[in-house]
């Protein structure tokens, strides 16, 4: 129980760190002076000190939605797979519920975009609606394939099962599921081929456009939400697709877990440096690859038994 609480606390507290880490790696690769790793915390602290300015066109939704953007993600954190085997965990919640919670968070984020009557929020919401509608089928199919490979739909149980019975007989479908899931991570977190998290150009922005009218505490909530969302996806990815190190004692296991996430962040940073952002209407091509790979994962599970 205590380990679980520590694990959740670590996930919440370290969430901004990894986003800063990606940014720092990118800057370092571009021969810029990297920003300090604590930059994410500094930003949040600054936002907390600031006064909240609410747009005069905004309604109650702006005052309520930021909480409902963050709360489902915090709820989702409870269901993450354990870091170490002895840890107590909520095993019964399945992956559909998790995607539902993520969609709930996105739903309110899109409402924020439409609330302040500015055209930019509308752009962001409209694009986000488009992308997340196409992410959904890929996500569900990946979950379907994973639930077959791991013999369980429960998130935590699936991760533990993958650790004890590494699917050597289903490597092909396991690999395809991993590829599809990785593309979905990029899409859901607004990383570069899909969305550029650092830009404020109206041509390119998706996530940033929706939160343009938020400030202070509300913006802090939404920013924390996007950091935690990344943490959730990274945790899912590392515990499903590199299910090692769960057997170790808690502190070592935690260190391994964080190292894995840092490694994933490194890969994402490398991809971000090396690719250009896709045009909005090219994004479906990438998501289409994710969907086809998810299909392929299922088909090769059934037909090749691999």
């Amino acid at each position, binding site marked *: 129980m205590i380990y679980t609480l520590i694990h959740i606390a670590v996930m919440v507290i370290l969430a901004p760190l990894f986003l800063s880490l990606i940014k720092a790696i990118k800057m370092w690769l571009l021969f810029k002076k990297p920003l300090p790793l604590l930059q994410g915390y500094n930003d949040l602290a600054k936002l907390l000190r600031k006064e909240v300015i609410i747009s005069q066109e905004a309604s109650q939704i702006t005052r309520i939605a930021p909480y409902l953007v963050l709360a489902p993600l915090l709820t989702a954190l409870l269901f993450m797979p354990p870091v170490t085997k002895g840890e107590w965990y909520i095993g019964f919640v399945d992956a559909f519920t998790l995607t539902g919670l993520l*969609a709930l968070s996105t739903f309110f984020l899109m409402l924020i975009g439409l609330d302040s009557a500015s055209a930019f929020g*509308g752009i962001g*919401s409209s694009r986000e609606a488009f992308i997340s509608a196409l992410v*959904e089928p890929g996500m*569900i199919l990946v979950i379907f394939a994973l639930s077959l490979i791991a013999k369980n739909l429960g998130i935590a149980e699936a991760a533990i099962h993958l650790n004890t019975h590494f699917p050597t007989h289903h490597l092909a479908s396991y690999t395809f599921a991993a590829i599809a899931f990785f593309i979905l991570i990029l899409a859901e977190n607004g990383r570069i081929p899909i969305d550029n998290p650092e830009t404020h150009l109206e041509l390119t922005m998706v996530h940033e456009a929706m939160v343009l009218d938020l400030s202070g505490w509300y913006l802090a909530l939404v920013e924390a939400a996007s950091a935690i969302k990344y943490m959730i996806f990274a945790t899912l990815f590392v515990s499903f697709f590199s299910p090692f190190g769960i057997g170790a004692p808690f502190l070592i296991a935690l260190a391994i877990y964080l190292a894995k996430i840092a490694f994933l962040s490194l890969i994402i940073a490398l991809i971000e440096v090396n690719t250009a952002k896709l045009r909005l209407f090219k994004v479906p091509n990438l998501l289409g690859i994710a969907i086809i790979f998810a*299909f392929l994962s299922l088909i090769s599970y059934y037909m090749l038994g691999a």
Partner: protein
Amino acid sequence: MFTFDPFALLFLFFLLLGVLPNLFYAYGYLDHIQRKWHFWIHYVAFVLSMGGVVVSYTPLSFLFFWEIMSLSSWQLILTDPKEESTQKAARFYFFMTHFGFVFLLLFFLLVSNGSLTLSFDKLHAIAQNFAYPSLLFFLLILGFLSKAGVVPLHVWLPYAHPAAPSAVSALMSGVMLKIALYGFMRMLLEVLYPWPLEWGILILVLGALSSLIGVLYALAEHDIKALLANHSIENIGIILLGIGMGMIFLALKLPMLATFAFLAALYHIFNHMSFKSLLFLSAGSVLHQTHTKNIERYGGLIKSMPLTAWSFLLAALSISALPPTNGFLSEWMIFQSLLGSSSIANMALKISLPFAVFALALTGGLAIACFVKAFGITFLGLHRSANAKHATEVNAFMRTGMLLMGAVVVGLMLFAPWFLRRFDAALASFGLPSISQKILFSWSIHSLTHNGGVVSPLFLLAMLIFFSAGLVLLAKRLRIRKRIFHTWACGYRTTPRTQYSATGFAGPIRRFFEWLYRPDVHFHKKTLAGHTTKFSTALYDVHIRPLFERSLYDGTKKLLNRLSYFIYRFAHFEQNRYAAIIFNLTLSVLFGYRIVAHQFSWATFALEAIILAFTIKILVIGEKR
């Protein structure tokens, strides 16, 4: 004549849930209606006939109440018959509902050997001895599913449902469609069982198609009530996915999984009734206050109509299948039953079922987009027209109606296990195994399959409330200062016209599915002094006619037109050609008699056909002029 078995009682309860809040609302809505007596008589007749359909146990009474239901709802569409479009919609509805009725009548005549007063339990033996059971099934599909609005028999629905007064739209979309599904399920489980595997697959395919096509056309719709009506098509599709999975599992002798799938379908029937009614009621309130159905003329209504807005939001969350609402729970169950396909032995079927999963998931994603659009454009931002500016909250009766319906939505979420037990008991009366012991444990719902999962609505709700409350308390503790002021809109003044429109919001998705929509785009721009980028006024207008309407219905219409033109030409010939037609007819009758009564051989048949063709060519058609 009548039955009160658990299944019928369940649907009576369903009617009660659907009608009671609606009654309040309809009373409040009355000042909008001129022919009050006309409305009330047909309203009551409509509700009672639906009850009649549910409890009847002979074909005769079933058909009688079915017809009353159709006719009264037809008259209800015509409550306010001034507009041309309303009359057209009513005519379309009248035609389609009787189109279905013919097949229903045929079905009942066939399965009852012509004696329509037999009770339903006697029909099974007759249906078993019937030589072509698939014919019965097709009649059933055409009869019931044309009423339920399943693709490709759905085209009337987005016209007919919005034309009625909002209370009636809620009844028609929320309740009447489910009565059609009730009839379908009862006939299937009571008369036609057991069925071959292909029937289930057909229903599954129809469900997947309906769900996708419904949601895609909903996204492109600007009329808020037509949008909701298109979503009814989508949800009927989702329900059919559940029923189709149940049929497949039953055909494959997996009765437990079949019960689970049927439970999911029944639960979604109830849920769809609740949230669709609530959506129509709150959309009706908006309509009542703003006197327009066009979503582009709303905006900012959450400030003047808070209760309406919040009830719309609740229903929108539920229809988008977001946890922990009831819509999520039933869609979760349908996903679980699709996941149960991994225990099927038939490999070809097993690897095709992911397509259904794909359809359902894509539908879910698009539904979220659609309801962000519907809620965001209607209730958020600035008012887009004077109508929206002067809107106020609706009267107390309508508010009561919405609140009660909201309570039904929440109740279906909170007491999900209780409802599922009732559904289980109702299905058990058809000989399906009871599984409530296996899937319901202390307020959580378990899946039956070995790779399935668990969901617990109360736990999710509690956690969401806990975290939100914690964050609110934290905000209180931090003493967040708030100020209401201009925010930076990139240097532009924020006016109603700078906002995103519904057309714009759906733009990316519309562009992605352009090959399906084939929109008529009108783009008028008054440019300034020859610049292409500078203009004084611009109008961008998109119209989308449903593909099915264009291809299937217009095609049929064209074919009929052409046929009738030929008949017309035949009927208006000169006398000698008239005589020639009679000559040919007599000849063909003689030939036909020879073939039927005498003896059949292909050689003589071919010879006679050739002779007939010759005489027709020479005498009737003649030379080309």
